[in-house]
């Protein structure tokens, strides 16, 4: 089974992060949520591998509920 990559994997992290923020500039909350959802579906289809996707879902859920990380 392919493992989900959880070590740094982007060649230019700062460029990607800036592009991500730019895509959301000027969007209200509803539009931002909608963009998130489209992005998730596009990336999921690209990855394709169900095992990797399950690990990604688990990782995302886990990070949200880690002690000390839960937003008030």
């Amino acid at each position, binding site marked *: 089974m392919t493992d989900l990559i959880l070590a740094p994997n982007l060649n230019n992290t700062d460029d990607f992060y800036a592009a991500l923020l730019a895509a959301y500039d000027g969007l209200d909350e509803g539009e931002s949520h*909608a963009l998130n*959802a*489209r992005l998730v579906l*596009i990336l999921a*289809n690209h990855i394709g591998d169900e095992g990797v996707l399950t690990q990604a879902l688990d990782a995302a859920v886990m990070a949200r509920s880690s002690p000390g990380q839960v937003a008030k």
Partner: protein
Amino acid sequence: MVAVRYQTAFRLYPYEKSADQEAAQPVRHPVVIVGGGPVGMAMALDLGKRGIACLVLDDHDGVGMGSRAICFAKRTLEICDRLGCGDPMVDKGVVWNTGRVYRDEREVYSFDLLPEGGHRRPAFINLQQPYFEQFLVAEIRRLQAAGAPIEIRGQNPVTGVRQQADHVVLDVDTPDGPYRVEADYLVACDGANSPIRTMMGLDFEGRVFEDNFLIADIRMMADFPVERRFWFDPPFNRGETALLHKQPDDVWRLDFQLGWNIDRKAELAPERIRDRVSAMIGAGVDFELVWTSIYTFRCCTMETYRHGQVLFAGDSAHQVSPFGARGANGGIQDADNLGWKLAAALNGEAPDALLDSYHTERKQAALENIKNSSRSADFLTPRNPAHALFRDAVLDLVEHFDFARPMVNSGRLSVPCIYDGSPLNGPDALGGGPARSRPGAPCSDAPVRDGFLLDRLTGRFAVLAINAAVPESLSIEGQPLDVIPLSAEDDATGALAHRYLGEAPCAVYLIRPDQHVVGRWPAFDPARIEAAFSQATGKV
């Protein structure tokens, strides 16, 4: 007094007084079937064909008005072929291949079902449920005339049930007053609100979906193409979905999602419905309302489908949402699964324990059906804002990118369950054999010379050999089997080889009376076939 709960479309079994009503002692029947819906009638037909005497008790005297089920899947038609009534269904039914999905006023994509070739029957047909039931009853009448031991009693509601060690006692009401009958086995096919289940105090659990759907079956002469059309958020039903589907006799099924908080009575007013219909099909189009109703749905199942001498089949055992057409289709497969097992148990050819496998296999199928139909319902009726967000994202994407098409879920094709892990399955000893024909799977059809493979499977156990030597005839424990010796050359299209040989040069299959595979091997070995036969009849 016998209460009338619904109007009948066809009066097929008017009340007649039976000798049982005058008997000093309750008369014992090998099988009593309670409920003459599609599942009860298929059950009676299957048992009657096997020479097992059965009595159907229904509280009405014919087939209910209103179409309910309209999509009957290929597997159902194949079962009806075996039961002898597939032809009139397919002749009457409508076959469609094109589907279109709309959002707002735009068509977002269309698809062609492109059904796999080399099957006698189409992927499915559209046919009003009353016709489907009528064809089953017509075949029962034909068999009865030829001496089959089937009896149908209309206006015979069952009002009480008591289970004894080896039989069941039933209280039955009639226009001439109550009487009692006994049954070695009782098959409860009395629908989603099953009075038998209630009287026995049994559970029925699952999920209610908070939504209402309005069905309007209309007759119109308009020249609409024979397609399935599905709308998300159309101008004529803002924020909801709608469906248009063709049925025989110039009848169309219109289905409008209404949401949860509605005024049911106001929505059912004919004028209100007529306005909705006109907004959908166009103001100038003439039509007539044939049948209207509002339905809500739930996905529920009983914990166990066998309780002693009582077996539950069809909607009484499990209920699904209509999306994906797995209600009647699933119920017919229940009857298909139970018929040969009951016959074998009653004829002393198999232990009573074989009937336990009915629960194991059909519960597995019901859970699969519930899973599929719940997923469709979740897409159409998102349960929370995040679910709605992803549904809308899919619809946004599908207008631009093909990858999102499989994510749009307005009902998946109803396909039969593969009984993986069933205690009746024998060995899978065919190296390179195709996965679709593994033990537990229903046999795929394939062209064979000038006919089709499934027509050769007559309802007994069968040995199918492809490019392998088999004896001309075969019986096990005194029971004759069908022997079907074929060569891959019998099908020039290659479908037979593709579906049954895969990578293997030759194969021998043992097939159950309901056309599910027991086991498969590269060559005929009588000892192995006999062992698998024992396994499949619950003897090991």
